[in-house]
């Protein structure tokens, strides 16, 4: 019930923001000081990836953590810090290649070469941070469990129930009897998504699991694991659906083949949309204060702020829930797909 309401809200907001963006794009020259504050650029900036980790401040006074830019252009590997761009004001010259960055963090080469951007962007940095957090938590717990033979204590007593919950309540019932083979992958998947979701909720952090590239990779791995572990009965259902008349085969087989891809595709969209939407809602609610200020003056801002803060707090708590829920759903559905692909004839 809550999820449906949440999703409906998310979709609506996504639509609203998209349309607002399009409108903003359509009238780029219209500069009017009396115009309402437009939250879309700020929101988009917050949920998008960047080559530098922006903390606070605007323009010249902004505080950012520079991140390494790694470009592979026509056989040349160019590595430099994002601060070399000086917030996009300067071009970086490496040999005969001149790089410049636009306001949306797209790096271009002036002579028309297409650089392959392998930079440690904000999201990559956040993901590496998640890697460190995960290693500290779980490798620490792993060493502890090797050492102590009694009941778990300390860090392990916190980690172990989580791991057991994922194993016994998500993986075991859905994958089926040969779940042991998939345990490392599914556990890693769950905790990777969970930690990235939770890190994404920290103020100033990146929107990692709300980025389509990351959810695409995760769901692509699901696609690979599902189909490479699939047995005869799974492929039999796709290329020779039981109980389907021969005349319908030309329709059914393509549908089944498309079905192979729609399942992970839905996973990709679900995680991306849920996490992005959560961020967008929170940012929109905060933007309400600035919109009120631009429309009604400081009084309006003070009037709206308490309501806005209460809503943001509420949304934040829901986001914490969603962080767990989405990690749960992603892992659950992946387990289910693997289970369906590996189940013996029924």
């Amino acid at each position: 019930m809550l999820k449906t309401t949440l999703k409906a809200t998310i979709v609506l907001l996504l639509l609203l923001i998209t349309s607002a963006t399009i409108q903003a794009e359509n009238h780029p020259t219209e500069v009017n000081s009396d115009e309402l504050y437009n939250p879309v650029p700020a929101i988009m900036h917050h949920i998008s990836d960047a080559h530098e980790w922006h903390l606070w401040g605007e323009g010249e006074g902004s505080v950012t953590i520079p991140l390494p830019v790694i470009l592979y252009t026509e056989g040349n590997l160019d590595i430099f810090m994002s601060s070399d761009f000086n917030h996009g004001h300067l071009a970086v010259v490496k040999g005969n290649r001149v790089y410049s960055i636009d306001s949306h963090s797209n790096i271009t080469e002036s002579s028309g070469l297409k650089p392959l951007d392998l930079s440690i962007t904000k999201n990559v940095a956040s993901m590496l941070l998640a890697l460190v957090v995960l290693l500290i938590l779980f490798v620490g717990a792993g060493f502890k469990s090797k050492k102590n033979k009694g009941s778990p204590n300390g860090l392990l007593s916190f980690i172990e129930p989580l791991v057991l919950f994922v194993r016994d309540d998500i993986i075991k019932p859905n994958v089926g009897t040969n779940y042991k083979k998939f345990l490392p992958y599914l556990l890693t998947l769950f905790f990777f998504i969970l930690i990235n979701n939770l890190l994404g909720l920290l103020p100033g952090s990146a929107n990692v699991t709300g980025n389509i590239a990351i959810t695409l990779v995760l769901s692509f791995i699901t696609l690979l694991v599902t189909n490479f572990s699939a047995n005869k009965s799974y492929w039999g259902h796709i290329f020779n659906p039981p109980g389907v008349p021969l005349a319908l085969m030309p329709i059914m087989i393509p549908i089944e083949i498309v079905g192979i891809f729609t399942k992970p595709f839905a996973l990709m969209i679900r995680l991306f949309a849920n996490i992005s939407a959560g961020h967008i809602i929170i940012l929109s609610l905060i933007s309400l204060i600035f919109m009120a200020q631009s429309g009604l003056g400081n009084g309006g801002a003070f009037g709206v702020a308490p309501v806005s803060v209460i809503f943001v707090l509420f949304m934040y708590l829901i986001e914490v829930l969603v962080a767990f829920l989405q990690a749960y759903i992603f892992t659950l559905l992946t387990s289910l797909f693997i289970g369906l692909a590996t189940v013996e004839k029924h």
Partner: protein
Amino acid sequence: MDPMALVTPAIGLMFWTCVVFVLLLVLLKKFAWKPILNAVDERNESIENALKSAENAKVEMQALNADNERILAEARLERDALLKEAREIKGNIINEAKEQANVEADKILTSAKEQISTEKMKAITELKNTVAELSIDMATMVIKSELKDADKQKKLVTEALKEAELN
């Protein structure tokens, strides 16, 4: 900004996600999932074993108790049997003793009777002898006194001769 940018995956980010995820998978598999789950499985096993052995011990205890009770009951039965036997033996002994005493008493009685009768006979014989002697003595004395005077002796002889002639 282009709204499509939000749903356009960046190659670099995909590359790094693969790297990070595979790295995590390898490291966590070796250093986290295996030791944690092994420890859990081992603990589960040891708990199960402990429970099983406790159950076994309980069953054994019950068997022991049952054994004990059986042994006790047997002992009780044996005791009762022994007591009964003892009582029987006691009765027998008493009866036997009584009988034996009776027999003995009879024996003693009969021997006493015999002795008494022998003694009696002896006494009677002795008495008879004594009486005979006394009577002889008396007869002697009588005869002596009778035969003091010759007349009387003559008379007696004649009388005796008379009698003998008659015979």
